[in-house]
């Protein structure tokens, strides 16, 4: 090995603490890059393959009922390549150990020949027999949640009739990647079932013989989806069509897309932050080394080493750290990517999902690390080149403090010599100190920002379930009912309060901006479910007009005072024009609220309700839910507690889990910076400190000079980091927020305190490591060395 390379390795070993700290920062950046972009490719690719293989339809439409003869008409629409009618119905699954029956959806299987579109993926067992009337497939995720296997029977209420069905197999479907119960945002595998049944028997159960109420379309190459949708709507209008929609509006796909988009944003924005910090650290560490090796560099040049040879020696140092960090990051990235897969298979029903690292992410990760490190290295090289070979011949000159602060004023007189040394040290290299402050503040900001988000998830849940929706359970009816239905619920013993709601599914439109959703009509003096403003005060629902959630107002780009078009997709399908009265704070979904009376008036219908929120006596809850579920008019009961639990799971294990990683990662940065800052201050002050000791200052006093600067840096960096962290938390919240949930932001003192204490702890550990080193070095060695 060349002597210079040997020097390189020994020097790296000498500062291994710093090397490891920097490599760790790089590794974490690359880890995130590799993991996130790998997840993006894996999810995107698997989703694409799954859709293609199992022929997910391009356009979907629901309707009340149409005779099979209409399918031929639909097939005639230009651009439509395939049409398939289905029967679909709401059902309830009764499990012996579940007090509340579980909402379910029954979907028909094509009897003759193969299913053309939305083919199920059989994970276990076999398809139901051709002629069998009571054989079914069951959604695999649901079966797993309840330990149900093929061969078992299932008690199902369909259209009011109880039936016992035999499970022949477990299945998944490309339209159910994200399987949440209707009207719910969060999937709960235990509380939502899908069953597939032969079409004839299902049609018999739902009075749909010779008819269909759902239709799937595959489009031909080059077909215009909006045009086809228009044509479909005009055909299905008279059959009670609720409006055809494309894959983009398929709830399941929408969620997957949101997830992928979120990951992509993170993969693009977070890792560069780490690499920038690492580049900066490498720059100060290596330029520090170059500074202290001025004479060695001069010497090498004096011996005839070229600028290139000397420069590459220091450049290699940068490259080794960058490459090592990046390599470790790649490996850890693959490992953590693999570890994340179960999280995704838990929330998304992929039949197969393997973590496939994106090869370009290695190239980008390693390349960017090396590029970032090189950028830092190039600045250093400039110095190496500029160094005069005659430098080696000259005795070292004392550092120049001539252009620095004097302490003449009254404040100055109060300072003792060690304090002056600290201040002069800072004044002499203001940029370096500023950069260190910026770095530590950045780490602190990242950590405060992420911790705030962590707290926000909890706040969000808290607000959702204690302020916005305070009901214990929601009862959904099969069809819109008169208000008497609410009275009936109120008569069940133990039900303390009933608030009827009418949900009208509609397309909300403001000019070209549209959103498929629902309008909730609620009673004027609602207590259990409220729209709230920014300060958490309930917003009274107006006599006329609509209150939109912030998320919805953002999507529609509409403001209070403007008119909103509501294209109702049920009943007589009126098109309503209502003024937007207020915008409410929203946390989950994209709700829109109206007064129940006002909504019914606009719909020109007598008072109708579709669901009711309940407050119940907790002691009798289970019994009440069982009674309610047995009512023929009730489609399902959702218990707030279950909902909250599934939301919590989503936060903890799903997309929200990234925040833990981010938290750890922010801490790594802080430590990397603080430790390096302390180390560099130490090497710079080593001689001064030893001199102080010789003059009779105690170890503690000497350490004060060293750690004082660090203290000053922290004193400025922590408050600055807090301010930056506040801004950052708003940005991150925006990035994390989706239609599914919106993360509330604000200054969270706890989070900032938490981040500050870690930052300070990181500083203290670094300071301690350095001081321990200081105490161990023999005075004489330091004084004898040239620096």
């Amino acid at each position, binding site marked *: 090995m060349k002597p210079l390379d*040997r020097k390189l390795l020994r020097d790296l070993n000498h500062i291994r603490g710093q090397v490891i700290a920097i490599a760790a920062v790089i590794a974490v950046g690359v880890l995130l890059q590799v993991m996130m972009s790998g997840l993006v490719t894996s999810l995107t690719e698997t989703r694409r393959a799954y859709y293609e293989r199992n022929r997910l339809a391009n356009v979907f439409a629901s309707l009340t009922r149409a005779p099979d003869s209409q399918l031929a008409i639909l097939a005639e629409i230009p651009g439509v390549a395939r049409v398939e009618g289905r029967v679909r119905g709401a059902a309830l699954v009764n499990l012996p150990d579940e007090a509340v029956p579980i909402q379910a959806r029954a979907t028909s299987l094509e009897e003759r020949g193969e299913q053309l579109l939305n083919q199920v993926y059989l994970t276990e067992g076999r398809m139901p027999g051709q002629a069998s009337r009571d054989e079914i497939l069951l959604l695999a995720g649901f079966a797993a949640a309840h330990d149900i296997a093929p061969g078992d029977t299932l008690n199902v209420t369909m259209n009011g009739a109880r039936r016992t069905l035999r499970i022949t197999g477990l299945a998944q479907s490309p339209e159910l990647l994200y399987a949440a119960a209707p009207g719910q945002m969060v999937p709960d595998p235990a509380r939502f079932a899908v069953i597939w049944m032969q079409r004839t028997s299902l049609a018999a159960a739902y009075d749909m013989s010779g008819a269909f109420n759902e239709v799937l379309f595959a489009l031909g190459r080059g077909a215009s989806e909006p045009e086809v949708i228009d044509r479909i709507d005009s055909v299905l209008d008279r059959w009670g069509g609720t409006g055809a929609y494309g894959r983009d509006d398929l709830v399941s796909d929408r969620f997957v897309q949101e997830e992928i988009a979120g990951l992509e944003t993170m993969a693009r924005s977070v890792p560069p932050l780490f690499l920038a910090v690492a580049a900066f650290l490498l720059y100060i560490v290596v330029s520090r080394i170059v500074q202290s090796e001025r004479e060695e560099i001069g010497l090498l040049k004096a011996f005839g080493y070229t600028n290139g040879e000397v420069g590459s020696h220091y450049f290699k140092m940068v490259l080794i750290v960058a490459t090592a960090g990046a390599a470790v990051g790649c490996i850890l990235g693959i490992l953590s990517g693999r570890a994340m897969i179960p999280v995704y298979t838990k929330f998304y029903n992929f039949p197969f999902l393997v973590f496939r690292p994106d090869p370009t992410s290695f190239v980008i990760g390693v390349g960017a690390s090396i590029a970032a490190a090189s950028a830092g290295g190039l600045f250093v090289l400039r110095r190496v080149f500029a160094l*005069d070979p005659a430098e080696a011949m000259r005795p070292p000159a004392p550092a120049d403090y001539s252009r620095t602060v004097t302490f003449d004023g009254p404040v100055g007189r109060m300072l003792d010599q060690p304090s002056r040394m600290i201040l002069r040290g800072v004044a002499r290299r203001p940029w370096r100190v500023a950069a260190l402050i910026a770095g530590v503040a950045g780490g602190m900001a990242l950590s405060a920002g992420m911790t705030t988000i962590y707290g926000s998830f909890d706040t969000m849940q808290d607000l959702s379930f204690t302020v916005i929706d305070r009901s214990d359970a929601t009862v959904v009816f099969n069809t819109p009912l008169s208000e008497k239905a609410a009275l009936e619920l109120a008569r069940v013993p133990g039900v303390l309060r009933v608030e009827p709601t009418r949900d009208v599914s509609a397309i909300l439109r403001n000019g070209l901006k549209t959103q498929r959703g629902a309008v909730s009509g609620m009673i004027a003096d609602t207590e259990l479910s409220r729209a709230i403003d920014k300060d958490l005060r309930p917003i009274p629902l107006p006599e006329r007009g609509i209150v939109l959630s912030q998320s919805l107002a953002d999507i529609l780009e509409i403001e209070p005072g403007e008119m909103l078009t509501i294209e109702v997709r049920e009943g007589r399908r009126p098109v309503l024009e209502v003024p937007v009265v207020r915008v409410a704070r929203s946390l989950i979904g994209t709700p829109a609220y109206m007064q129940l009376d006002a909504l019914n008036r606009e719909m020109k219908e007598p008072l109708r309700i579709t669901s009711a929120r309940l407050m119940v006596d907790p002691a009798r809850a289970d019994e009440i839910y069982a009674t309610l579920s047995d009512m023929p008019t009730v489609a399902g009961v959702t218990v707030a507690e279950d909902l909250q639990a599934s939301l919590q799971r989503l936060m903890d294990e799903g997309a929200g889990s990234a925040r833990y990683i981010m938290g750890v990662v922010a801490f790594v940065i802080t430590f990397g910076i603080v430790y390096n800052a302390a180390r560099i201050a130490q090497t710079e002050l080593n001689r001064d400190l030893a001199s102080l000791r010789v003059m009779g200052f105690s170890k503690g006093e000497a350490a004060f000079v060293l750690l004082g600067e660090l203290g000053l840096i922290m004193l400025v960096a922590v408050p600055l980091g807090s301010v930056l962290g506040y801004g950052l938390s708003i940005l991150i919240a925006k990035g994390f927020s989706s239609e599914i949930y919106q993360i509330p932001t604000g200054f969270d003192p706890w989070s900032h305190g938490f981040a500050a204490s870690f930052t300070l702890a990181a500083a203290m550990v670094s300071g301690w490591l350095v001081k321990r080193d200081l105490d161990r070095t023999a005075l004489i060695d330091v004084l004898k060395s040239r620096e």
Partner: protein
Amino acid sequence: MTIAFTAKGLTKTYGEGRSAVHALRGVDLEIPQGEIVVMLGASGSGKSTLLNILGGLDHASTGTVHFRDICLTDLDDSGLTRYRREHVGFVFQFYNLMPSLTARENVELVTEIADNPMRPEEALELVGLKERVDHFPSQLSGGEQQRVAIARAIAKQPEVLFCDEPTGALDSATGRAVLRVLNEVNQRLGATVLMVTHAANIAGMAHKVIRLADGQIREVEQNETRLSPEEVVW
């Protein structure tokens, strides 16, 4: 007698205007090949500056320097680098060893890029450090470190050896050992040795003594009889 160096009208000015320092104010000199030349002078008289220019470490402000038929004052940085690489060895007052390399590795640093080097062990043996090849600088005394520095400078078998106060940081006994090595290098390798010192006694072992004062040559003296390094006292 072949001439190694010829300098004409050499000046060197540091800085500009009123704060300018005239380190050399017109130096003419000739240095014959294969001799030991000692430059004497008070501190600040320009000895190091002259040595650095002859050694290709620094540019002169005006004037010319030739090493044999190479005009050093015409060379750019990379030309000077090549000159130093191919022809010159240096020994400094502060040893300037790489602390993270052993004695042998410090020598290898130079043999690595030389055309016709001796083996590092051989160079170290020449300076009497055969037993200490694997020691790090921190494990060596000042005199030993300086001898490693000399071994490093001679290992490439340079035609010229520049030494700036090689004994400046050493006591007389160790200093004498260093001088002995330099003398031997001159005799065995035939290298021209240019040594800067402010210790007048060392001049006794030189073939030729150049006295500098205030950036100019005051006196050039040819020694009829030379002292052996052992006889040098200071």
